[in-house]
């Protein structure tokens, strides 16, 4: 019987190595796998390359991982932004490498990693500072730049419901980076708010098929924190 559920966050994160590329889903704290991020802080892997929409906000989650000196490099679309205090300190000290990229280019590079596409051309960023050092090419009179796939060693995602095969359903805007990141890593670990029986999730609504998920842990994390202002 296929059963990808493990009993603890520690078990879910077991074996993540130093130097891993870790894709961390979530957008504005919605659909963000916070228990797994906290678990990764506990787990101890260092020298990580983290791919996440922001360089962390506040003092928890990705910000804390960075603050503890565990992230060698971050790829994100928002580096300096509201509440990115820890990143800014660490970056000012020269202790973290930054690759800034457009959010869509980030999503598409991850999708490319998931889909066997080592590189693709995009108009996003063409003719800008972010095109520096990238191959440019004209198609049909318009300039595009070559972007390369992002491959995760590990992906951390949060589902609303999951069955033992690892089929995942998300809630509302909690979908965001979760499906694409889940598909792009060698080891995909999902925390899920609810557990479904096999066959309970509709074949039409499954957003991440179990083939992309390696380990599951049931975390009834509740609603994302309330935003104030």
């Amino acid at each position, binding site marked *: 019987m296929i059963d990808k559920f493990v009993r603890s966050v520690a078990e879910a994160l077991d074996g993540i190595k130093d130097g891993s590329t870790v894709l961390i889903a979530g*957008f*504005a704290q*919605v*659909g963000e796998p916070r228990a797994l991020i906290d678990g990764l802080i506990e787990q101890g892997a260092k020298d990580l390359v983290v791919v996440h929409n922001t*360089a962390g906000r506040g003092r928890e989650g990705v910000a804390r991982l960075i603050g503890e000196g565990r992230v060698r490099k971050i790829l994100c*679309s*928002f*580096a*300096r*932004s509201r509440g990115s205090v820890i*990143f*800014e300190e660490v*970056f000012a000290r020269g202790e973290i490498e*930054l690759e*800034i*990229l*457009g*959010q*869509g*280019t980030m*999503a*598409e590079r*991850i*999708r490319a990693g998931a889909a066997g596409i080592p590189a693709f051309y*995009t*108009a*996003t*960023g*063409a*003719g*800008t*500072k*972010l095109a520096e050092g990238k191959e440019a090419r004209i198609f049909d009179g318009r300039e595009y730049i070559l972007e390369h796939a992002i491959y995760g060693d590990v992906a951390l995602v949060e589902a609303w419901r999951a069955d033992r095969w690892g089929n995942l359903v*998300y*809630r*509302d*805007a*909690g*979908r*965001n*980076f*979760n*499906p*694409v990141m889940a598909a792009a890593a060698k080891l995909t670990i999902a925390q899920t708010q609810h557990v479904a029986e096999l066959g309970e999730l509709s074949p039409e609504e499954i*957003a991440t098929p179990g083939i992309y998920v390696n380990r599951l842990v049931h975390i009834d994390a509740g*609603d*994302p*924190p*309330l*935003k104030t202002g």
Partner: protein
Amino acid sequence: MAEAVKWQPLARDALAARVAQDIPEGWSVNLGIGIPTLVGNYVPPEREVVFHSENGILGMGPAPASDKINRWLVNASSQYVTLVPGASYMSHSDSFALVRGGHLDLCVLGAFQVAENGDLANWARSEDDNAPAIGGAMDLAAGAKRIWIVMEHTTRNGEPRLLKRCTYPLTAAGCVKRVYTELAVLDVTERGFAVIDMVPGMTIEALQERTEGKLHR
């Protein structure tokens, strides 16, 4: 400036309403952070416009009442929103495929600078900004069918922001179709900025004083 001020600049909400006035029924529209977000409040509900948010929402509605907040439903500016009937969710990759594939009829963005060739600068105020926030701006600017900009006509010091060439790093080259400021509405044309509307009392001459790019009728 010796002239007496004979006009009243549009306030933030009036400016948002001015933009909303030009959005026809049926368009799919993405609204950027700041004044662009307010535009949605001024599209009359009977005029069906489909609002997209980069984080995977198509068919976004207005902010909820404070006791009706769904914490799982935020827009790309991290604000709580609602859905309208006909809405759907998609992943980030599908959402940006939609943006980058040219499927949005319109994206309304803020800007630091716009040039008369349509160049847009809205993500960094210096070439030396090495840790900026880009978000989806470059994707939207390169991908949407039309980019309309809502911005202040000049800096707080009165320096022009509608330029011959941008001095800040570009978000995308040649993407801007129209600019709405508190003073005027301008189209970006092959000849440069064409004035298509001004606040009452404004003159082309007074507007030109506040604009580096050459204005046309």
